[in-house]
């Protein structure tokens, strides 16, 4: 393709150049003839003869020959001319001998042949040997150029396609190792910053994400193994123990009731896991509606009011009124309930950390901040150590200090999943002392399709 284009370009230049030279030459000969014709008209054959003789003496490419009606030499610098030259009239290309060092040389010439009225003949020409050589040089250069271009084209083409194929082969090889189960493989990036590099980078980013998800899945299944199998095992032990001990109806009843309780806890954990999985897959959220968030938060807070009173906890609410946003009412309610429940479990149970004799308190707040809604639940408990940070948002993560109160370790992960579904994020802040969990939700969430993506 490139070679063809180059050849065409060179050919164009060649034909143009040689055409231009030819036209120049013809123009010069024409001017010469016009000049000589004037001489002839003015002074007849004798003046023409003088003019031709005079011009012939000049050292140049110009060629002249004047002969009489018998073909005998009268004037000019052309001596040996083939006789059949005389039989033609008009433009002609011919070969003539020119004296030079080392004998006469055959040179190429272009000339116009005229017959004058009195039978005299005039040849006016130009030596075009140099031009011919020049043409040959150009022609050769053209051929060499074309050859080089073709060579480069072919070699380059082979090289590019070889390296391209090699790089595509790398992608294939990497995907093969990944398919065989090793997710750590990545496609090498050449650093050329070309399309293939961009493809490789994108594929690598995709692989990173997949690996991350797979690791997450692995962790979850490990945790399921632990957090579901442990209570299942406890359940089994209890039934087995009760069977072995015997002890009559009352003892059996007692054991069975405990068994039901444990089964219920298991069901709860299982339901929470399913909910989180569905939320993260973006399978929920069809029930998005315009929800009066202020009212919802007020209601949920009110639901816990008697609990707070019973436990001697002050439940403070600072809820900006009139906030409405697109949301899933049940999910937001659930998230808020989980946060308040956590605050009761971990934020107020350990009264010694509070220091003062003041009643422990939980603050529930909601405010509109530009185009976001910030819902927060804060307590004055021990808080979360800095280095544990976001880890508590993950599934089944329960900090060692909090292993004692009952819980599945799924509460905050459900909160995080609900928040993500609404296109928002969860912030964990210190409350000096204590913990403040902030849900920052965009007002227009849910209207923009699937926010889980």
């Amino acid at each position: 393709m490139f070679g063809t284009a180059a050849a065409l370009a060179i050919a164009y230049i060649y034909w143009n150049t040689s055409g231009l030279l030819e036209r120049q030459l013809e123009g010069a000969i024409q001017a010469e003839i016009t000049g000589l014709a004037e001489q002839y008209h003015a002074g007849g054959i004798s003046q023409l003869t003088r003019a031709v003789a005079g011009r012939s003496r000049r050292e140049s490419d110009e060629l002249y020959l004047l002969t009489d009606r018998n073909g005998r030499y009268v004037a000019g610098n052309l001596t040996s001319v083939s006789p059949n030259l005389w039989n033609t009239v008009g433009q002609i290309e011919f070969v003539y001998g020119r004296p030079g060092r080392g004998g006469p040389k055959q040179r190429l010439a272009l000339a116009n042949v005229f017959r004058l009225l009195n039978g005299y003949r005039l040849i006016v020409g130009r030596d075009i040997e140099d031009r011919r050589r020049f043409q040959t040089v150009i022609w050769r250069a053209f051929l060499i150029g074309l050859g080089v271009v073709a060579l480069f084209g072919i070699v380059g083409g082979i090289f590019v396609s070889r390296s391209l194929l090699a790089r595509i082969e790398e992608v294939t090889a990497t995907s093969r190792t990944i398919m065989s189960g090793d997710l750590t493989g990545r496609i090498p990036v050449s650093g050329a910053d070309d399309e293939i590099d961009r493809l490789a980078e994108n594929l690598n980013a995709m692989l990173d994400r997949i690996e991350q998800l797979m690791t997450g899945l692995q962790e979850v299944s490990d945790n399921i193994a632990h957090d579901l199998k442990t209570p299942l095992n406890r359940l089994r032990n209890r039934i087995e123990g009760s069977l072995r001990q015997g002890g009559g109806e009352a003892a059996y009843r007692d054991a069975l009731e405990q068994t039901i309780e444990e089964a219920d806890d298991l069901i709860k954990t299982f339901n929470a896991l399913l909910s989180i999985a569905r939320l993260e897959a973006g399978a929920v959220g069809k029930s998005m509606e315009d929800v009066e968030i202020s009212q919802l938060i007020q209601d949920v807070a009110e639901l816990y009011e008697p609990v707070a009173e019973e436990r001697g906890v002050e439940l403070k609410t600072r809820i900006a009124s009139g906030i409405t946003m697109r949301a899933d009412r049940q999910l937001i309610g659930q998230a808020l309930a989980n946060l308040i429940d956590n605050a009761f479990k971990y934020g107020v149970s350990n009264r010694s950390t509070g220091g003062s004799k003041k009643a422990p308190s939980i603050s529930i707040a909601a405010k509109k901040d530009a185009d976001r809604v910030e819902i927060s639940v804060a307590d004055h408990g021990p808080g979360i150590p800095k280095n544990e940070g976001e880890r508590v948002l993950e599934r089944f993560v329960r900090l060692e200090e909090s292993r004692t109160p009952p819980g599945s370790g799924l509460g905050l992960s459900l909160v995080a999943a609900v928040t993500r579904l609404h296109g928002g994020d969860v912030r964990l802040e210190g409350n000096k002392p204590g913990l403040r969990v902030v849900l920052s939700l965009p007002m227009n969430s849910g209207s923009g399709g699937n926010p889980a993506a």
Partner: protein
Amino acid sequence: MRVLVIEDEAETAAYLKKALKESGHLVEHAADGETGLALAEGNAYDVMIVDRMLPKLDGLAVIETLREHDNRTPALILSALGEVDDRVKGLRAGGDDYLSKPYAFSELLARIEALARRSVPEEAETRYVVGDLVLDRLSHKVARAGQSIPLQPREYRLLEYLMKHAGQVVTRTMLLESVWGYHFDPQTNVIDVHISRLRAKIDKNFEKPLLHTIRGAGYTIRVGGS
């Protein structure tokens, strides 16, 4: 009361039949949607329990067909799908209540008894009376033994629901759904605390308690009994 159980899983069906009979109900059982539909069209039941996924005819389709034929037998949908979206679908198809598996039998029993009760027209009832406790639905006033009892709006609604189902067991989930409109688990024993507050207002200063806790099930409001 007469209960129709449409459930394809043999063991679940056998357990339901046995447990419902023990609770004093007449039970008929269909193992697939078509048989269930035929039974429901040909007989008068007080309530039916319909599994969502059934052979031959889907549970929702059974209910939809019945409703198209103007059969208003209250239906409780049982399903392994427990998300809010599925619940909405079930109720839209004409179901009256939705219970996701696994469930406690006490929950199921309380719900179908509440459903059967619902089929009796209630609009006419302007006041609920349990013993000497009176709830006036027009003036939203509550009095016991002629003594007015001031209640918070939420407490009033809680009592109203309990009295509407007087003599029946009402579970915590039913209260959470009906009185608060929540379909999620609030973790802490919030309902118990609300009930004990209400109890303090309507029972504390009176000799005979009306609001009873049914262990492992929920609450009931009635005169006498444990």
